[in-house]
């Protein structure tokens, strides 16, 4: 496999290979948190930070600890534990030193452990054999891509709530899924720009 420039990877992860719109990851929090723009923004920011850090961290753990010891089979458990521990650590640090930031992001951090996009990014990182810098770029890009999608959807949903009269049964998750489909269709327009897998 040829080496992909980390910068290319970063933009590819945001636009052409958006983790939510092409890989369907992180849909559960996406649907439940996208009702308001404010909470979408908080959740998105928390995801960007955690995803960039844990993808890079798991890269180190995988290649420096698991591979030399021949424990690759246990990487699922190890990754989950790394993510959970990291989130816990961040939560405590933020609460202690940046109370005002904690007020904004605090409630979103525990939810992140179960966000499959975070775990998925680490798995893709292993399958596609990224090195450390690539993992960092990929994690940050995926996080930003996820944030972009959730903010776009929450803005549309806020408008819908005020103005639209939806047919019976279409309100709630159904219309959100269909709008997400349209958004994914729009993002397909980027797909000619960069080619990563």
């Amino acid at each position, binding site marked *: 496999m040829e080496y992909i420039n980390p910068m290319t990877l970063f933009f590819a992860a945001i636009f052409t290979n958006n983790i939510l719109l092409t890989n369907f990851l992180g849909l559960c929090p996406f649907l439940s948190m996208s009702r308001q723009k404010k909470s979408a923004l908080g959740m998105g920011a928390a995801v960007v930070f955690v995803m960039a850090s844990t993808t890079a961290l798991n890269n180190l753990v995988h290649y420096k600890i698991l591979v030399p010891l021949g424990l690759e089979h246990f990487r699922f458990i190890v990754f989950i534990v790394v993510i959970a521990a990291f989130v816990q650590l961040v939560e405590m640090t933020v609460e202690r030193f940046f109370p005002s930031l904690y007020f904004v992001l605090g409630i979103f951090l525990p939810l992140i452990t179960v966000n499959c996009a975070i775990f998925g990014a680490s798995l893709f990182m292993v399958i596609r054999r990224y090195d450390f810098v690539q993992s960092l770029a990929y994690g940050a890009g995926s996080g930003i891509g996820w944030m972009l999608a959730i903010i776009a959807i929450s803005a549309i949903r806020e408008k819908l709530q005020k103005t639209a009269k939806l047919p019976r049964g279409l309100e709630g*998750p*159904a219309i959100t899924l269909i709008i997400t489909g349209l958004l*994914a269709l729009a993002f397909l327009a980027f797909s000619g720009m960069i080619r990563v897998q």
Partner: protein
Amino acid sequence: MPTLPPKKEIFLTGLWKDNPVLRQILGICSTLAVTNLMVNTLVMDVGLIFTVCMSSLTVSLLRRYTPMRIRMMVQTLIIASYVIIVDIMIRAYLPDISEALGPYVALIITNCIIMGRCEAFARHNPPVASFIDGLGMSLGYSLVLIAIAFIREPLGFGSLLGFRVMPESFVQWTVMIMAPGAFFTLGIMVWILKYFRPQKGEEKG
């Protein structure tokens, strides 16, 4: 201890009444990712059924010995262990499908259905009931996946399980095998179900 509903009732609740995908909108990440081919869907279903049933059973067996505060961690580790077994089995016997499914087998770990069942049911109830609850929920999930694949594969590839079902002149709807098609299919299915059977405690969105 509250009395349990009969086993059949528990089973049917998961299978249809509270269907995890269509009703609770849980675990849809993998629902959408693997349903462009029927074969992938079936393999995923088997893996998920095994994981849900076994982790519900294990969590239920350990329910008296698990400290409350660390129960989430314990549940995650139990689930992850079973998923590793599934992953190794699929890689050993079905290497092609393992390649196609990519990270989605491992993502069973973060599938909210499993965690949800462990939290909501298995940790308060005896093993047999938990196992049946897991079976009902995972079969309900599988049925929806199969239904979605049944729509997407013929329209997207013109085939079903690799056999051609559409006439030669049929122009394949490429969009159905890509991401937007998956969102549309699931959105419309949820809509149809909600139209005919509105839920109690309706949420606005």
